């Protein structure tokens, strides 16, 4: 089976008058139809820029894809004309964002906004469209959809807005849903609801999902496969069980050890020294090297090799390379 989405060696750069900043450096992603892939990373890891690159919505004029390919259903999206993208966005690939308030038009009823998304991509009568919208609102768990459709976004709670966003994204039954920090702005009990909804929708509609988050807990909950990014690079890739039970990259290990757990009785948390490095010009070597316990001179000088540790389990690290050989 050919994968739905195949990203190869993606490099995203921002060119400013004084400097070039490389936000994503050599990203590979594989996502099957109806699979869920999680990208986890901290600020500056490039995870959001990667998703914008797939949608070809990088901030203009500075942002551009410098290298690589994004194969979606066998077509390289980067080779398409810019004018061909709007037909794909929303119909084939849809996106939901962290802040549903700012992503919704405040002066338009939410029902109309969803209907508009539908009309953009399908020739459909208004009665039929209305039925589809109601069905979708029902599906995303909005109580009394016939009334809520007439509400404006500010009249809805954060959780309801995110449900409306999801309804809008899924109304045309896209093959791929990109969810960028979909629950970060929500309260924990609402986060549970929304994550539960996303999982349920994926089961019922079979939409492949690319979920992006800084929260290892969210990723562990939703994603089947996980890509760990740091400083624009992929540190480690594995299926969920392997990544959380047997992480091999020092960054993944450090990060997992730094997160407090409900069931642990350590007196001190493991801490990763130093600060997250902001994205900068392209540099050789591993971006995590300055903070890594296992760093050796080669780490700062040469890009680490990608070590295959098992079926779909890859870590880019010199220390891992040494341990394996």
């Amino acid at each position, binding site marked *: 089976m050919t994968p739905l989405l195949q990203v190869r060696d993606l490099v995203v750069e921002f060119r400013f008058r004084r400097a070039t900043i490389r936000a994503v450096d050599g990203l590979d992603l594989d996502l099957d139809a109806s699979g869920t892939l999680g990208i986890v990373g*901290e*600020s500056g890891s490039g995870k959001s820029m990667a998703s914008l690159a797939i949608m070809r919505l990088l901030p203009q004029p500075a942002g551009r894809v410098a290298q690589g390919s994004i194969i979606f259903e066998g077509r390289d999206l980067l080779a398409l004309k810019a004018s061909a993208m709007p037909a794909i966005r929303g119909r084939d690939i849809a996106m939901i964002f962290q802040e549903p308030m700012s992503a919704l038009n405040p002066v338009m009823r939410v029902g109309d906004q969803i209907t508009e998304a539908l009309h953009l991509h399908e020739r459909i009568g208004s009665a039929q469209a209305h039925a589809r919208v109601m069905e979708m609102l029902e599906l995303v768990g909005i109580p009394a959809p016939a009334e809520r459709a007439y509400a404006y976004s500010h009249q809805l*709670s*954060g*959780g*309801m807005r995110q449900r409306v966003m999801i309804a809008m994204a899924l109304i045309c039954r896209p093959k791929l849903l990109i969810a960028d920090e979909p629950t970060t702005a929500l*309260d*924990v*009990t*609402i*986060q*549970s*609801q929304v*994550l*539960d909804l996303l999982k349920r929708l994926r089961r019922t509609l079979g939409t492949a999902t690319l979920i992006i988050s*800084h*929260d*290892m*807990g*969210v*990723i*562990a*909950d939703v994603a089947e496969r996980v890509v760990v990014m740091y400083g624009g690079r992929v540190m480690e890739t594995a299926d*969920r*069980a392997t990544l*959380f*039970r047997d992480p091999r990259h020092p960054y993944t290990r*450090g*990060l*997992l050890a*730094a*997160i*407090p*757990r*409900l069931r*642990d009785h*350590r007196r*001190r*948390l*493991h*801490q*990763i*020294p130093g*600060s*997250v490095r902001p994205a900068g010009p392209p540099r050789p070597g591993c971006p995590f090297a300055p*903070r890594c316990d296992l760093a050796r001179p080669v780490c700062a000088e040469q890009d680490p090799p990608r070590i295959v540790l098992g079926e779909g389990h890859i870590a880019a690290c010199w220390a891992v390379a040494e341990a394996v050989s």
Partner: protein
Amino acid sequence: MSAAPVLSARHIGKDFKSERGRVVRAVDDVSFDIAPGETLALVGESGCGKSTTGRMLLRLIEPSTGQIFYQDTDITTLSAGHMRAMRRHMQMVFQDPMGSLSPRRTIGQTLTEPFEVHGVAKAADCRDRVAALLHQVGLSPEHADRYPREFSGGQRQRIGIARAIALNPKLIVADEPVSALDVSVQAQIVNLLQDLQEQTRVSYLFIAHDLAVVRHIADRVAVMYLGRIVEIGGKHQVYNTPRHPYTKALLSAVLEPEPEHTASRIILRGDVPSPSAVPSGCAFHTRCPIAEARCRVERPELREMDKGQEIACHLA
């Protein structure tokens, strides 16, 4: 708690006037004690009144009702001038490490401010004391001449903590001090706060929504929902034997990076109601999985279930 508390809140409440003149009760009848060297965590979702409660302790927001005792002084009756002097003993660490530092002032100037306004150090001493403070929070004295924008989020939060400990306070109100930070940096700040507590026996009121962090740092935990404490108790009591249905739901909503953890999650229905329209009876009844008819009319008061563990629920 054998030692006399550093701070006691007694039935404090806060009413805000909304734009249309309606009164919104953001905090209602909240009481707790904080012992010396203890960390009390205040947890809850947005709009539960936890930040307002923290600010009322320092009277950065004036309480509408109730009393707050610092040691034996009722600080709610102090004049503005006396209250300012009292702030020596009670300090605050803020959520937003960028916004809480003035962008126009160097770190040295920001850290000198506490000494200056309380007249505790001469200008000549200030440099040394700032250097000592920076050292204490893991930064170096040369940082004093730089501006906030030159620091990362974690470093800025260290500076915010340095400002809070400058006057050796007895209590620090820490309002979501790690939630704006990168995951890999949060542990550094949590460890720093714990180290400082060991050195100085400072008490913390630790306001947070992340229950895993709270589990790690707190001695006692108070859970708030729509302006009221619904459960308060020792950390082990609240985490091992939570009794209030809301506490149980909150705990089960914690997402841990463990792939097999998702099995038995309690998913609450509906949204947190707006603080301007608090449901009658038990405020939680609209979302509670076990609510009965009486919960809709009769408001449960806090009652002791176990030694030191109190909950406000008719049915537990």
